[in-house]
């Protein structure tokens, strides 16, 4: 506490202010798995979630004129931007910026929301284009895709990161620098863009995506982009827990479906700088146990191939790693190192007393 007081006294007001004023890009990844939503339809229907999400988005945009938003669907067969979207009208006029596109889209579209005089226009455009995109997304999903019980979460995260990176690159004055420099300057420059990711998850992440998902998580950790997770179903995903804990994000399981909006606004709206002054609502115990590659058993003691780092729950058959095909030597873990050394010494002494072999004497030197 004392240190925080000192910090405040040390006339850091200017930097504090500018930090707070930096625009925030909020990337929302919405799990649109139809099966999961059908499962949830009694307690938490998707339209209700979208409505709550829209209020949340509006609150975020109202915080700062320059705040930005992107919504990405993590669908069963694809990951796709729901907002901002590329529409045919934009393809014709490449120069049109985001807002124009959306407005054109709204005008061409069949809804009247954007023309309502009582509705703040940017909010209305987001609402209508998000709904449009969602409807299109569901309409073009082939029934065969329903056999997937999981969604393209890793793809959605990669898209979100690439999008955030592009915006940061564009906002950084020196554009010729390499990505590492860009990230460091984005952290220090007062006008830079802060970014974070919010995942609304309704279905478990597939172990198939483990590696790309981990790659995305580490990339966002390096870029200081926290991944917040709101799990809508109690079947919480280990990967998403690890994602938020690795990136200093917030992980919450939705307890009361009716309190969705409340949860969103209270836990996930505060920006990164202001989170330092709040008690985080995250859960702090994290399941870091690994799943073995052979049976997907969750283990807390495992065997790791030193070549490819595959995890096994027991030494694989014939001591051959079936990921990389290397023949592995089993390290003898039954004995403690001290014991082994003593045994060797004793043997050597016996050797010296008996038949002294030159190789035996050479060993300690080599």
């Amino acid at each position, binding site marked *: 506490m004392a240190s925080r007081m000192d910090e405040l006294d040390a006339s850091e007001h200017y930097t504090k202010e500018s930090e707070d004023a930096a625009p925030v890009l909020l990337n929302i990844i919405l799990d649109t798995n139809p*099966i999961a939503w059908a499962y949830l339809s009694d307690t938490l229907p998707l339209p209700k979630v979208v409505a709550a999400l829209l209020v949340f988005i509006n609150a975020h945009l109202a915080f700062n004129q320059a705040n930005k938003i992107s919504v990405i669907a993590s669908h069963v067969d694809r990951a796709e931007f729901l907002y901002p979207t590329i529409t045919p009208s934009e393809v014709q006029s490449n120069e049109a910026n985001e807002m124009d596109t959306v407005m054109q889209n709204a005008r061409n579209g069949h809804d009247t929301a954007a023309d309502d005089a009582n509705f703040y226009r940017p909010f209305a455009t987001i609402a209508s284009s998000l709904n449009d995109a969602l409807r299109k997304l569901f309409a073009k999903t082939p029934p065969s895709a329903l056999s997937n019980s999981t969604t393209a979460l890793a793809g959605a995260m990669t898209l979100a990161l690439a999008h955030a990176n592009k915006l940061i690159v564009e906002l950084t004055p020196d554009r010729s620098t390499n990505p590492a420099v860009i990230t460091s300057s984005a952290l220090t420059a007062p006008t830079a863009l802060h970014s974070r990711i919010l995942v609304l998850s309704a279905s478990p992440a597939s172990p198939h995506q483990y590696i790309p998902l981990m790659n995305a998580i580490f990339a966002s950790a390096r870029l200081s982009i926290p991944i917040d997770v709101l799990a809508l179903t109690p079947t919480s995903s280990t990967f998403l827990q690890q994602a938020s804990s690795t990136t200093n994000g917030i992980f919450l399981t939705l307890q009361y479906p009716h309190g969705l909006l409340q949860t969103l606004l209270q836990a996930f709206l505060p920006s990164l700088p202001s989170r330092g002054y709040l008690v985080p609502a995250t859960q702090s115990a994290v399941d870091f146990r690994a799943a073995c590659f052979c049976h997907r058993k969750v283990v807390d003691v495992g065997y790791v191939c030193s070549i490819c780092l595959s995890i096994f729950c027991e030494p694989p058959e014939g001591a051959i790693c079936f990921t990389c095909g290397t023949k592995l030597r089993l390290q003898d873990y039954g004995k403690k190192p001290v014991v082994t050394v003593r045994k060797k010494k004793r043997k050597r002494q016996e050797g010296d007393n008996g038949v002294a072999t030159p190789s035996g004497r050479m060993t300690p030197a080599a």
Partner: protein
Amino acid sequence: MPAADSDDEYIQTISDEEGDAHRVSNGRRRGDRSTGGRGRNVRAAGFEVSRTWEALEEGVDGTISGAIEGLLDATKRKRATKDTTPFQRGIIRHLILILDLSEAMLEKDLRPSRHLLTLHYAQDFVREYFEQNPISQLGIVGMLDGKAERISDMSGNPEEHVSALQAWRDKQPSGNPSLQNALDMARGALFHAPSHGTREVLVIFGAIYTVDPGDIHDTIKALVLANITCTVVGLSAEVAICRTLVTKTNPSMNPQLAYSVALDETHYRELFMAATTPPPIAAANHQPERDDTGGTLLQMGFPSRIVTPYPSLCACHSQVTRDGYLCPRCNSKACSLPSECRVCGFTLILSTHLARSYHHLFPLLNWYEVTWNMARSQSPSQKHCFACQTSFPEIPTEQSLAEAESRKKKASGLAAAKQPTAVVGRSEQAGTRVLNSSSRPQATHIEGISESGRYGCPTCQTHFCIDCDVFSHAETHNCPGCLAKVGLDHGYGDSDGMDIDASSITKPNGIGNKMTDKDVYGDILKGLEKLLVGVS
């Protein structure tokens, strides 16, 4: 919160890069002085030293602005384009970093001074090393006053090394360097390194001499016997003994890669940071006494993070904490990972630490440059970068392309006819590259840069912009296209051994009953429509 998370150190790794600010480099002067074989050629081939203006050609639109941007982009992309052969890499590494702290480091030819720049880069190196090799060990040794001095002990904690390096900022480099003493100390420190990891020494050598107490060739022989590989980054000029050291200890590695002399600050950083990538395990592992497999099965513990209502002491520092990780074997508490259990000696690690290295094992393929013709034939409908949605430049018509081509041919034909000798001379100077456009099929083509501003993934054939290309290869190691497009069928699933049958994926209870194909959509669509009405 931060104290509870062992991954914090990785998040806060990005430090300022004052070194890169000195981009207007004195590369040429140093290049002349240096005798470094590889460095010189590379630099001469790069656009910075070669005559950049001669590489400029009119773009299809008749301006050169595209070409200038292209040159900048080329450097960007060069960093990201890597060797993607899935080598078996030595991921569990044991490395001793030997820093020259002798008088030679007072030179100011690298700004602000060799000493300060080296300490600065060394800190970056430490952070990057542990980022890339999370379960590896590192130790730092300094050479000064004719002796070797231990800067930090062999350990897996980046913060220890960084603070040890920071302490050296205030001290002045002094005396003569002794390579032999430093190598002997490194050999001692690596002696106990287990056989499943690599044993490496990286020497940063500023001086052009070494003052040794004995025969350094004996030390080199001992290093070879101990399977220690040495690489050297020189700061002044190539030194014969370093060349010998490198050739003897790296029989299978390209000696030019193992020993190079830095030309300027940026080049120095590149050479230094190159050592953070895990080395490929040489096919001919020169270690007859080890069996030729090289692999070992390691037993490790994966503890979960716990938070207790009452604080207790951690086994590692005897500090009072509420959170920590319990050793799965003996239940003693460690406060940060990766570490070894203080009580039973078990290796404790987070599964995420292992995952951090997976991208070395399954690297992302380099993307190809898309020509105008390819852009037209492959995906004429894709007018935006798939990942960030920036629009691509318009694809020119075939006619205008042909016109531009013929215009260029004429121009270069004239130039070649006028000064044939000059062209030859220049191409010899440049070493590997011939700038004369008539000998190259595509005149506007700058190496590594796509004329259409598009880069295509060979797996999913999706096109991306240059920023997303660089970002995907340097940071995420994921292809957004492969993962986002009907993503679950592509690439990763088969190659990584994570393949398991779909039945074992857990489904939320009762999902099967709820699912009646079309109804799912019907309900959702109806709901959305209702919502829209509500909005308006």
